[in-house]
């Protein structure tokens, strides 16, 4: 167990007791050290980490303030994985919602969505997304669309707050669609 080096907290500082040049030098050194210890990958929509993913979804995800806050609070070595998973799971959520809608509209049992992967998935990417695919595959094999609806509405970091169709409405989430709001 260790305290986070990446937490965005208010540390406060002691009162000034040293001559000004010394204080300035110490603050400068601390700032440089702080920056270098928290230096994560520079993730932009043109980063190599996102090659193979749809550019519009990459742009949408990186513009999400909650993802940006999550990335800041995460160990720099895990940030690429988090961003890739955020983008691919967003696509997967939209595809799963579409599968549910087709299922309930036509009565035809859908096929579980596949994962849209980046060209170079980070370590842990496949393990995470495979869990999602397996879960949805099992749910579909249950034969009851309500089970897929429950999974899509799951409150714990799942699909419920994913924007369903940003082109139609940038604020309407999967939960909004399923709950008819």
């Amino acid at each position, binding site marked *: 167990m260790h305290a986070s080096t990446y937490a965005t907290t208010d540390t*406060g500082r002691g009162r000034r007791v040293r001559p000004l040049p010394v204080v300035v030098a110490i603050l400068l050194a601390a700032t440089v050290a702080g920056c270098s210890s928290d230096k994560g990958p520079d993730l932009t929509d043109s980063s190599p980490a996102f090659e193979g993913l749809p550019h519009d979804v990459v742009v949408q995800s990186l513009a999400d303030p909650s993802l940006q806050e999550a990335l800041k609070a995460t160990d720099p070595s895990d940030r690429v994985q988090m961003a890739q998973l955020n983008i691919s799971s967003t696509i997967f959520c939209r595809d799963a919602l579409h599968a549910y809608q087709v299922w309930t509209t036509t009565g035809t049992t859908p096929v579980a969505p596949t994962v849209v992967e980046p060209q170079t998935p980070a370590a842990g990417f496949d393990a995470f997304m495979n869990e999602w695919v397996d879960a949805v595959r099992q749910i579909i094999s249950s034969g009851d669309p309500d089970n897929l609806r429950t999974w899509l509405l799951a409150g714990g970091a799942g699909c419920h707050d994913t924007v369903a169709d940003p082109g139609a409405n940038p604020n309407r989430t999967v939960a909004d669609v399923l709950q008819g709001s």
Partner: protein
Amino acid sequence: MQKRRILAAVFVVSAAATLMVAGPAAASVTNSGSFAATCNPSSYGYATDNVGYYHVTNLGTVSIKQKSSSPGSTSTVTAMSQNGKEFSAQNIGDNGVASWANVLTGTYHVEAKSSYDHNCNGVLPGDGNYTFGYEITY
């Protein structure tokens, strides 16, 4: 006699197959930890200890209890998945429990910040931090 043995063997094999499909019920696990979280949530975000907890049961329950806070504080708590998506935030005090149902399988990190701005730093500048002690059941 032989037919009876064959039937018994078929029964044992089919029972085992049923168990494999259903799988054993995963028992929940409880762990504890602590980290420094901000007392100035209007200016600073969540803190975490970056310890990942793997929640096995798809659509199971995860709960976080605030075991202690020093200096005393109520907290806004959540948990973040590997894909950067968070649980809906809940406010709790010491011995309070935030709970989430229908949690997907995955690894989660505990996050917390004070639920209100207050001075945890005495005469020093800024509001400082408090130590958030927690217990997570997943």
